């Protein structure tokens, strides 16, 4: 399986470099501290905005992590090693998305406790739908950001173009993510927020398929 080999390469790169998860974690922690300062630790404000702040933080963290995961492909033109092989290039997109999904999920597991503690949020809810929906959102986050990162990868100022193109395109996902998490925390019945799940699934399908189909063109010189 080519896909497994490519994912294996991504994971090995991360185990050797430890760049992506550590960057994401350090950046995430500093954002939490800044959020605490800017919200004046008002409990009402934070509890109302906690899901939105969380996904905002995840968006910034994703930009750093995904950008890094494409930056090392450019060093030594290393990606040529993969591009000269007869693999389906759409798989590069899938492999990068899935490995990015693993990294961001690991990072969330590490950061969720400081997030609750520093922002002093009390939480007492059903964790199963929360975890499941968060995993789906993580995957969607990775599909969108990997597609855009692939687009901007070889551009001259990729570090700027990547977020500038990404943020408008990803805004529906951020709206959906905030609403899903908010509804689950407020224990709203599923019927009220199922529309967001449909939206999330359509984002997964649209960006997953277009990333898979377009990556061949994006990576061709």
């Amino acid at each position, binding site marked *: 399986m080519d896909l497994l080999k490519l994912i294996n390469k991504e994971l090995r790169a991360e185990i050797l470099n430890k760049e992506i998860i550590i960057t994401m974690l350090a950046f995430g922690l500093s954002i939490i501290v800044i959020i605490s300062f800017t919200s004046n630790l008002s409990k009402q404000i934070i509890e109302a905005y906690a899901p939105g702040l969380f996904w905002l933080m995840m968006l910034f963290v994703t930009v750093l992590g995904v950008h890094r995961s494409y930056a090392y492909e450019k060093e030594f033109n290393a990606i040529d090693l993969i591009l000269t092989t007869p693999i389906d290039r759409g798989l590069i997109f899938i492999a990068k998305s899935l490995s990015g999904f693993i990294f961001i999920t690991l990072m969330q597991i590490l950061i969720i406790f400081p997030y609750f503690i520093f922002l002093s949020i009390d939480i007492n809810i059903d964790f199963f739908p929360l975890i499941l929906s968060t995993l789906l959102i993580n995957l969607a986050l990775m599909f969108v950001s990997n*597609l855009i990162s692939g*687009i*901007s990868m*070889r*551009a*001259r*100022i990729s570090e*700027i*173009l990547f977020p*500038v*193109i990404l*943020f*408008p*395109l990803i*805004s*529906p996902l951020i*709206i*959906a993510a905030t*609403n899903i998490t908010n509804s689950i925390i407020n224990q709203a019945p599923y019927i009220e927020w199922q*529309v*967001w799940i449909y*939206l999330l699934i*359509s*984002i997964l399908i*649209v*960006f997953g398929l*277009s990333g898979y189909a*377009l990556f061949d*063109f*994006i990576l*061709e*010189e």
Partner: protein
Amino acid sequence: MFYENKKNLYLLIVAIILFAFNSLNIFYGTPMVPDQHWAQKIFYLHVPSAWVGFLSYFIAMISGFLFLSTKKEKWDITGTACAEIGTLFMSLVLITGPIWATPIWGKPWIWEPRLTTTLILFLTYVGYFMMRAFGGNIERVKKTSAVIAIIAFLNVPIIFYSVQFWSPELQSHPQVEMNQQPTGILIPFMISLFVFSFIFFVMLSYRKYVISINKNLTNNV
């Protein structure tokens, strides 16, 4: 020269006459809507601008597909021209929207789904133009901008529904169903729609011409 071709010159003259007629018709030939007074007139410009903007971005997406599959220079030129004209008309939408909303809704911007979709699409195209301007290697930039044009338009329904669900209380659109409008409004509106589409095609052919001579000029120096 572009206008030495008599056909183009006639088209330009017809476009100017149509535009003048349309403006006069909007001012003097349409009935006053009692509760909106003069503000309602902007609707004859706002909606056709939005229509042309979306049409233009739609053609940009089709050109993107055709450019990626055929690699023909003309599709890149068409795509760029459509992106530019589309952004021009989208700016008109974003300017006329708040002008209408200020007296009617009491504030210039409430996150109305159609306007918000326009705004997000506009921001995506800001990224598109940044990619074209600062992307570096021009052949690669052509492919990446074609991909951006494609995903920007595929994202339209996702943006629209996410904004609609996000603020359901804002579903009251300024425009009621068009076929329920009295003919006094409907006919001038349809005329305006036609005139704007006509002007769009005249602009498109001229812009395509300018982009292609620009290219020839830089290549022959």
